[in-house]
């Protein structure tokens, strides 16, 4: 099965056994022992899931973040949010479908939501460019953010990208500039802004919609300056060292919270977001509403000052030479 990860296999095996059993109740002569058997397997599934998921390595989390069944931006737009009304185009060159954006409601609040979007199958992945945006995606995002700022709509960005697209067209139309301008302009937006890393937080391509008052991350998502494979290729001279690189780079939600690089971790149900979208979506909604409530209490000036201070504080260095 290509939709399951290695470490998920024991769980899937048990689930298959359970389904097999349910499909053939006639094979069991006694109804009572059949029910007991089912209960036993269900308990075993829960226990195995707990075992597997309470001790995930950084690399396993990277795999979960890239899980083919993982909920994407549009899945949250249909669950955490309601009334999504998509808006297209950067008004300059093209519509980039690796980024979706538009009006939506979060509970009773009207907001602007922008997110990178992966495809579920090959056809959609071609349309979405595997979630890797061109310059147009970042410019569309900025256009929508400026409009939201103009009309007083809080902005929520959902990040799920392996990175901005490294292609010829992207370079010809200055993808680095598109990202850089977003970094600068997002710092001055007057409305409350929040970013959530829902899957892959791939470097500058993620940060390009991530300079916000609050940065949240789902429990099994990751956020990194470089992909573990890329880091492994350079520092270990071997892409197969990716699990080591994932560990060393400190890219999991837990690590990032400890390093104070993110503000809050949104819990996922046991088994990961793909195992229970409804619960994940509800958790996300609760956390976003909580953060939004706090942000709306602040004056614009305070919010901008805190946003700047939040990013300004990142970094570790010494000012004087340490004794050797």
């Amino acid at each position, binding site marked *: 099965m290509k939709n399951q990860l290695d470490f998920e296999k024991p769980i899937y095996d048990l689930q298959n056994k359970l389904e097999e059993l349910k499909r053939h109740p006639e094979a069991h002569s006694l109804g009572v022992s059949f029910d007991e058997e089912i209960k036993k397997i269900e308990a075993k599934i829960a226990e195995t899931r707990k075992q597997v998921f309470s001790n995930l390595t950084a690399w396993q989390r990277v795999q979960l973040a890239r899980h083919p069944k993982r909920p994407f931006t549009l899945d949250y737009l249909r669950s955490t949010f309601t009334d999504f009304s998509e808006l297209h185009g950067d008004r300059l060159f093209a519509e980039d479908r690796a980024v979706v954006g538009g009006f939506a409601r979060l509970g009773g609040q009207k907001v602007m939501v922008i997110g990178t979007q992966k495809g579920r199958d090959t056809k959609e992945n071609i349309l979405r460019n595997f979630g*890797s945006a061109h310059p147009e995606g970042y410019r569309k995002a900025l256009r929508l953010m400026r409009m939201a700022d103009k009309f007083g709509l809080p902005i929520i960005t959902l990040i799920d990208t*392996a*990175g*901005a*697209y*490294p*292609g*010829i067209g*992207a*370079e010809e*139309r*200055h993808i*680095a*500039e598109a*990202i*850089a*301008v977003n*970094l*600068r*302009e997002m*710092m*001055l937006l007057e409305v409350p802004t929040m970013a959530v890393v829902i899957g892959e937080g*791939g*470097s*500058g*391509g993620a*940060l*390009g919609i*991530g*300079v916000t008052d609050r940065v949240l991350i789902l429990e099994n998502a990751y956020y*990194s*300056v*470089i*992909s573990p494979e*890329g*880091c492994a*290729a*350079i*520092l*270990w*001279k071997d892409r197969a060292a990716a699990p*080591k690189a994932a560990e*060393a*780079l*400190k*890219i999991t939600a837990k690590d*990032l919270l400890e*390093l104070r*690089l993110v503000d809050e971790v949104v819990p996922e149900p046991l088994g990961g977001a793909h195992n229970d979208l409804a619960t994940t979506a509800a958790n996300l909604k609760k956390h976003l509403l909580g953060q939004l409530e706090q942000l709306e209490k602040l004056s614009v000036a305070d919010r901008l000052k805190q946003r*700047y201070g939040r*990013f*300004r504080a*990142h*970094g*570790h*260095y*010494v*000012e*004087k*030479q340490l004794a050797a």
Partner: protein
Amino acid sequence: MYAFGRLPADFENRNDELSLNDADATECSLGLPHSPLDPQPSTFLMATTSFTKKSLGIESPEPAVTPTTNNSANTTFAKKPKLGGGKSRKREIPEGLWTKCPKCSTMVFDKELDENLKVCTQCQHHFPIGARERIHSLVETCSFEETDAEMSSVDVLNFTGMASYVSKLADNQKKTGQKDAVVTGIGKIGEHRVGLGVMDFKFLGGSMGSVVGEKLSRLIEKSTEKNLPVIIISTSGGARMYEGMFSLMQMAKTCGALAYHAKAKLPYISILTNPTFAGVMASYASVGDLIIAEPGADIGFAGARVIKDTTQAELPPGFQTAEFLLDRGLVDAIVPRKEMKQQLIDYLDFMTTGQRKAAAA
């Protein structure tokens, strides 16, 4: 997998190959820490090797390969005598050291190359140039006051790949005599007092970690406070992997500082030199009021090899050069190194018009 944090491999290898004849090391004029009065002899180490009979300079960025130190360097380098004291140094350099221009294959005497700001005397190919040498070529004598000279990186993630970050830092500090990959300060260019930040590729491929981000952010903030223009001269392979997400955050930090600088209507000139890529290109290097490039510089987001591997397409001729980017509308002007100072003065004359009118009113 993509561009950020990649230390374009061969870049770092080439660090060892750069000719480090910093002519300014013999002069007191910069107020730089390695003046002859400096009690720290280690700061002189930056000029101990020079290249002979081997082409240097950076052809095209080739990321995603393996960096780390080039241990075979000694076999291809002729050692220059280590400096005992600044003043006598130039005379101690043996005659006959020359460098082959990678573009026109002419053998150029190092001394001539130094005097020509590391530009080939035959074909005008721009060789790499150190941060201090570059500052020396731009600012008025004795006008440069360096800021945060002692700031250096710490291994916040306790990062150990094949080599530890701590040892990498120590090696690079020793090799270059620099604390990190950028020199910042306030100096005068013509009549203009400016905040000036100059990156140095030979320190870990000009990679941006906390120190680069912090020094530049402080420079920008200070310039905003003092109503000064900012000029940043970039050369970088991208964000510094060893500092993980802290490196990525420097992009937001520096662009944020520039947002407030821009809001105050102060000029920011970004100068792109060979090579400028990835995290640096996708942050402060790309948001200048003016974006100026040196001739022939390789500039881009992702490295050419990554793009080739991803797209399986042939890259257009001249792809990711300064000239290519001028044609496609990113770069305001291409300015040769030797004309840079005068050109900056001219630009600043225009860009400070409003400020001067306001001051006169």
